[in-house]
């Protein structure tokens, strides 16, 4: 990460120069440093330099009980906390062989899609801001405020929600929550129309985005990109549909696939995903089952407060889980979910104790960032900003 990497990009013989971009740069969406070799305005080489936000989360998890890792996962990709929670909880549940009640699954799917809307709104707002369309940012953050209020209502927290638990969710939905989600879901498609009115046919937007930072399907696969970045190049894969988890097989939704593989196509796909996500939220609202929100596993799932105060056994279980954690059978799993950015995978190794032996996060931003040099080389320096925006990286997710 440090400066000594720069010599890999020595200035060329006579006409090129090295330009340092970031880590404190408004359009790198965090602390990303790019070392760019330019020939006039044209990019010859580009090298991302990361690690400024590395906090050693993978090492920290090894000292925590399984249930204590959930709040850490929020902080990896801070724009989609619930997706991280979900991936981690699903992985541990797979290790335990735990069955999750229908209602908890539905709540998870609903919250996960609301999280996707939140993430895409931040992406759209900041991306448009980079390109120079300031007003879209204000509109997007207006709706994002609604989403954050929903988060606050359900989890007590606006950003680091930590709402999911191993075996279910923390609390049942509060009174009046579903009505507010419904009001939001009914209103939101017209908001998306509003954004599209401002952007989709805007000649400046099209000129800045169309044909920029193209990547072919072969390159996109070879460089390990996933999510909208891969789908924009024409590869039809979405883990929600192709490897369903948490009851996604019960929902109908379209997977938008592009073919151009440029920035404009990625923009179109994400806007369509916003609409599909609202559709999933609506389906979850309509079909929300009654029942328990936690799995029937007293050794893993904390008992209800009410039972704890009246039943000796529940009190003992509560005490044991809090003080000693719960043991997880030996083994290893890799659980991947479709995050707003792509394949988010949790690889967990258990050695049979109450603390994970190893937790590795396969973060989509980390892999997608590798495609940046391929997208930018040979193009103008102004396109770098559009390219970074279009792969939608979150530096917390890149560095962990």
């Amino acid at each position: 990460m440090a400066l000594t990497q720069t010599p890999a990009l020595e200035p060329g013989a006579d006409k090129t120069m090295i330009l340092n971009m970031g880590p404190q740069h408004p359009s790198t969406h965090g602390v990303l440093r790019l070392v760019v070799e330019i020939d006039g305005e044209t990019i010859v080489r580009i090298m991302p330099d990361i690690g400024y936000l590395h906090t050693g989360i993978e090492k920290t998890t090894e000292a925590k009980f399984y249930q204590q890792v959930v709040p850490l996962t929020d902080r990896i990709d801070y724009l989609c906390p619930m997706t991280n929670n979900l991936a981690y909880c699903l992985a541990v549940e797979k290790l335990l062989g735990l069955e999750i009640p229908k209602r908890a699954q539905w709540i998870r799917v609903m919250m996960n899609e609301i999280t996707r809307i939140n993430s895409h709104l931040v992406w759209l707002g900041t991306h448009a801001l980079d390109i120079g369309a300031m007003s879209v940012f204000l509109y997007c953050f207006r709706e994002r405020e609604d989403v954050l209020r929903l988060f606050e209502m359900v989890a007590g927290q606006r950003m680091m929600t930590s709402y999911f638990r191993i075996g279910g969710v923390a609390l049942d939905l509060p009174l009046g929550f579903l009505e507010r989600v419904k009001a939001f879901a009914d209103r939101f498609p017209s908001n998306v129309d509003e954004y599209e009115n401002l952007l989709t046919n805007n000649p400046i937007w099209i000129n800045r985005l169309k044909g920029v930072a193209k990547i072919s399907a072969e390159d996109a696969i070879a460089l390990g990109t996933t999510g909208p970045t891969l789908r924009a190049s024409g590869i039809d894969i979405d883990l929600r549909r192709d490897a369903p988890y948490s009851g996604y097989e019960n929902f109908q939704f379209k997977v938008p696939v592009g073919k151009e593989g440029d920035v404009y196509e990625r923009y179109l796909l994400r806007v369509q995903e916003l609409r599909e996500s609202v559709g999933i939220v609506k389906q979850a609202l309509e079909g929300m089952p009654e029942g328990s929100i936690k799995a029937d596993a007293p050794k893993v799932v904390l008992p209800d407060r009410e039972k704890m105060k009246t039943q000796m056994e529940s009190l003992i279980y509560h005490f044991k889980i809090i003080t000693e954690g719960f043991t997880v059978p030996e083994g290893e799993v890799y659980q991947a979910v479709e995050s707003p950015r792509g394949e988010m995978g949790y690889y967990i190794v258990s050695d049979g104790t109450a603390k994970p032996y190893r937790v590795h996060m396969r973060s989509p931003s980390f892999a997608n960032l590798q495609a940046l040099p391929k997208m930018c080389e040979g193009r103008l320096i102004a396109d770098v900003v559009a390219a970074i925006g279009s792969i939608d990286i979150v530096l917390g997710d890149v560095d962990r």
Partner: protein
Amino acid sequence: MALAPAITDIDQLKDKPEVAALVGWNAAAVQSAKFDRNELTVWIARDQIVPACLFLRDHPTLQFNMLSDVTAVDWYPSEPRFEVVYQLLSIARKARLRLKVKLASDDTRIGSVISVWPSCNFFEREVFDLFGIQFEGHPFLKRIMLPDDWKGHPLRKDYPVEGYR
């Protein structure tokens, strides 16, 4: 939902196309295999990992065209100490496969699969940075997360987590 016991017998796992193909390709390269929690893991001999990856990528029916992830696990103090873990994904078949390579603590070199999947670039650098595993043939094997002058590899189990440095 009780967990089914893991299947570790290679002969029993021959009905999995991945295991059958790998054993048919080079039986000596396949050290062992495990089918647990619906996930298939195959241990590959260290010197065969690059050809094995190439074989799996170009196989007409298996088509593992994408490398999802590379990471490692430290089993300190037991030997062989390290396991390098590759998560493969076949986009066409929507199938996954996990490859593992065991490495002894005194010889942590392994071939880089960068010629097969360029996407392993950052992943291998991360494993090098945090575990100290040498990927031979990697064009730019430098620290990626930590500063260049950092000492030690933090994800190793014998790396101190408290005290002064």
